[in-house]
């Protein structure tokens, strides 16, 4: 048995002054711990900061997503309107050109302004 290794010996006990020192330090630390316990729902301050930061992050993400979606919708609407106007103008120009005996196929670029003004002059003249 290993007891014989330490026969006649013991482990030194704590020094006499240590008790007072340690208990005083512990009691001084206690109010700080108690104030930590007053934070609602048992959260510590750092927990609250962490949760607050997370909420701010989520709210910012939601706001950015909403605003970018609205901007995309507006842009798509403008593009659709512009496309429709262009298509209407093109069909009107095509009608004028057809009256002069010119035919545009589907892939032709829109008539140049100078051509259109010529068409206008011809139409007004006739």
């Amino acid at each position: 048995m290993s007891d014989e290794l330490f026969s006649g010996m013991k482990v030194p006990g704590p020094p006499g002054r240590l008790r007072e020192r340690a208990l005083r330090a512990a009691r001084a630390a206690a109010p700080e711990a108690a104030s930590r316990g007053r934070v609602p729902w048992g959260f510590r301050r750092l927990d609250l900061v962490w949760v607050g930061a997370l909420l701010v992050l989520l709210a910012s993400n939601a706001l950015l997503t909403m605003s970018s979606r609205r901007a995309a919708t507006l842009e798509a609407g403008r593009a659709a309107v512009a496309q429709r106007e262009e298509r209407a103008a093109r069909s009107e120009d095509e009608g004028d050109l057809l009256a002069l005996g010119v035919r545009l196929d589907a892939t032709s670029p829109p008539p140049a302004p100078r051509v259109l003004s010529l068409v206008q002059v011809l139409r007004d003249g006739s």
Partner: protein
Amino acid sequence: MDSSGTWAAVGVAAGRAHAAVRDVAERPSNASRPVDLAGAFAAVATGDMDALDAVWEAVAADLYGLALWRTGSREDASDVVQEVFVRLASAGPRLARARDPRAYVLAMAHSAAVDLVRRRRPTVEADDAVLEPVVPDPGTAADAARASKLVSRLPAAQREAVYLRHFAGMSFGEIGSVTGVPTFTAASRYRLGIGRLRKLMGVAR
């Protein structure tokens, strides 16, 4: 006198003291103190800091011994004990949930001692006596001093396992939970440590 003769003489000369030490060493853990300690823990958990006195009575010697064997320095051991009591006072309601209060505070001491040794400057010598004679006697005191030197040659983890097993009377499972290692590792550390000590002291198995 050769080393085996020294140790044999110590064993004979301090027969009665040896029996007393063995009683302490073989004291089963959680024998009589846990009820008081659990009550004191519950009181401290509700903010009754007067209950720290009862905690001190129950565990201060074990805490100091563990810290001394782990750090090898009386000053560091004092700092560890103080740190443990500060942590206890700050722990709040968590204390009431501790299943084994004694193992809980010893685990705190282990953790505080490991932190302290890690922070300590490497130049600091930490070889204070970790053993002293039960009966004040110049011969036994010299043997205790020599034994302390030999103990300090063990790795810290083995010293700690030997202390917890031999002087705090803990099982290997309890040592494992205090030091945060599996039971097998705790047993292995103890056996390696005690085997090496036997060899250093020249004691036959």
